[in-house]
Structures are given as C-alpha cells and as structure tokens.
C-alpha cells in the first residue's frame, strides 16, 4: 500500500512476526511446549478410536478477530485404504 510504505520492509516485519506469536501465547496462556504436549495427548486419544497418520496431523493456533482458535486438521485413514483382515 502506498500510504505508509510497504516496500523494503525490514525490522518492522520482524517486529510483526514476533508480536504475532507473543500475542497468541499471551491471549491463551499456552506455551509452545504445552501446545506440543496437548497435541500428543489428542493424537493418543483419537488413535484409540480411528486410524490416523500422525505425520499428517496439523494442530495450530489461529485467530478470528480477537478470538483465538485451536485448529486441528486430522486426516483419517479410510476403510478403503485399510488392509483387509
């Protein structure tokens, strides 16, 4: 955008990226480590009921306005792909 200048951005980009992460953790009171522990626990529970590929699972924090969301994308192994017997 021309108004405030968007080209050749340097330290401001870094500031914005750092702030994005800091604000997520401030708002949710959840650290990167805690998020990782929770992810493993979620996978363990889900795996007890359906077959999943842990490598394909994406669990991340996003936001809609000021509302924080925990988004999980967990592809299931379908019966078609499962071995018979």
């Amino acid at each position, binding site marked *: *955008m021309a108004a405030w200048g968007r080209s050749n*951005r340097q330290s*401001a980009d870094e500031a914005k990226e750092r702030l994005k992460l800091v604000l997520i953790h401030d708002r949710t009171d959840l650290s990167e480590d805690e998020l990782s522990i929770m992810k493993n626990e979620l996978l363990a529970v889900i795996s007890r009921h359906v077959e999943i590929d842990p490598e394909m699972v994406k669990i991340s924090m996003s936001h809609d*306005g000021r509302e924080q969301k925990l988004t999980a994308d967990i592809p299931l192994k379908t019966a078609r792909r499962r071995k018979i017997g």
Partner: protein
Amino acid sequence: MAASVVTITSGKGGVGKTTTSANLAVALAEDGFKVVCIDGDIGLRNLDVVLGLENRIVYDLVDVVENRCRIRQAMIRDKRLEELYLIPAAQTRDKSAISPSDMVRVCDELRNEVDYIIIDSPAGIERGFRNTIAPADLILVVTNPEVSAVRDADRIIGLVEAEEKGPAKLIINRVNPGLTKRGDMLTPEDVVELLAIELIGVIPDDENVVISTNRGQPIALDPKSKTGQAFKNISKRIQGQSVPFMQLDEKGDFLAKVAGLFRQGGD
C-alpha cells in the same frame, strides 16, 4: 444530555495517555461541549501540568471522594476555554484512596452537568486502572508502534473485554512516517491487524508536542498544527462523526485523505 465518560488508557507508561487526554478534552471543549477531565493517576498527578493548570489547584479527586469539598469546588476552570474543567489527582495519596465505585459515583454526579468526562488512566493493570475503567462508556487504548507498547495494549484490550467494557478503540501515537516508510516501524495497518480492534486515531511523532507541553498549552489549541488536527479528528469521531484518516509524509505533514487505511496489500 447525559455525559459520555471516555477513559484513556494504555497499560504501558509513557505512550502519551496524558497528552492524549489533555488534547481530546481541549478539542471537545473547542467544539462547544462542556468537558471535565479527571486525572485518575492518584499519587502521580500530571494532567494539571500538561493542561497548564497546576497553579490553581485547591481541592482534588480524593477530597471529593472523602467529602472534604463539593465536586464543584474541585473543578478547576480552564483559562482559555470556558467549558473545560479539570479535577486533579491527589499528590500525597495512593491508588487505594479511591475505589471503582467511588469513580462511578463521582461520574454519575457529573453526568447531568457536563457533556463529556475524560478520564486519564494510570499505567499498569492494577487498582488505578480498574478505578478509571469502572465508569467508562468508551475506552480508548493508546499505543505506540513498538513491540512493548503493542503487547501491553493487547493485554489491556483483553482486560477491558473481560470487564465487559469493550470493545475498546485504538489510538496509535508517535507514528514516524520516515521510519515506517523505510520498513523500520510497524505501520498503523500492522498494529490494527495485530490488535484486531477499531482504530479511532493516528497521531504523528511531533517534537512540537514536547514544546507545547513545556508551555502547558496542549497542541490542539494551535490552529495550524497538523498534530493538533489529528487530535481534533479523534474528538469528531468520539462525537460520532465520520472523519477520514489522513496520510502523512516524511515530515509528518498530511498529504491527502487515505481511503484504504484498513485495506491489506497494495493499491
């Protein structure tokens, strides 16, 4: 008309809360409204010197709350604007001298007397902050385009939401267009995107604010000042008018109206 109570807050100190409070009070009074500003920073009185009214204090906010005077007696009338008054903070007491319900009571008493009550909040998230947001109809969060100020603003916005006093609106102060253009300062768009609240004003970084504060003459009193105009624009938006955001050049001068301040990407 029953008064609107507007509280100016920030979390972080030194971002320009008191300057903003003084200038918004001046701008509203210049538009013909009867305005009382209240210094909510008990123990660290400041709004009086910024307004240039420090020599005329007899009674303060704690005197009102503790019934040593009537509210009228603690209202210092401004020398320049007939309809502008200040209720100063006590200097020899601390935040615990006043409770949130005291602030609500004082504001309720003033509501039928004036059009706007502007409350200058102390830094921090403790008692003083809670006192000043308790009576608020509108909360304006002041920040600078810097990581620490933005982070603290986010915390304050969350607390305001939790107290069901939101949504707060945002003032971005001390924007340096030269640094912004070079990519070395967060743009107003960046800050709005990060904090995800409505913007109500952008104030340029202007050394004339230091000079006007030295003299106890808020910059909104200077009809030629662009920074003064930026405060006046916020005052109009508080009144419910739709005023376009202005574009700044590298000297902090306004160039033209900015149509797409919130638009992402190029135009």
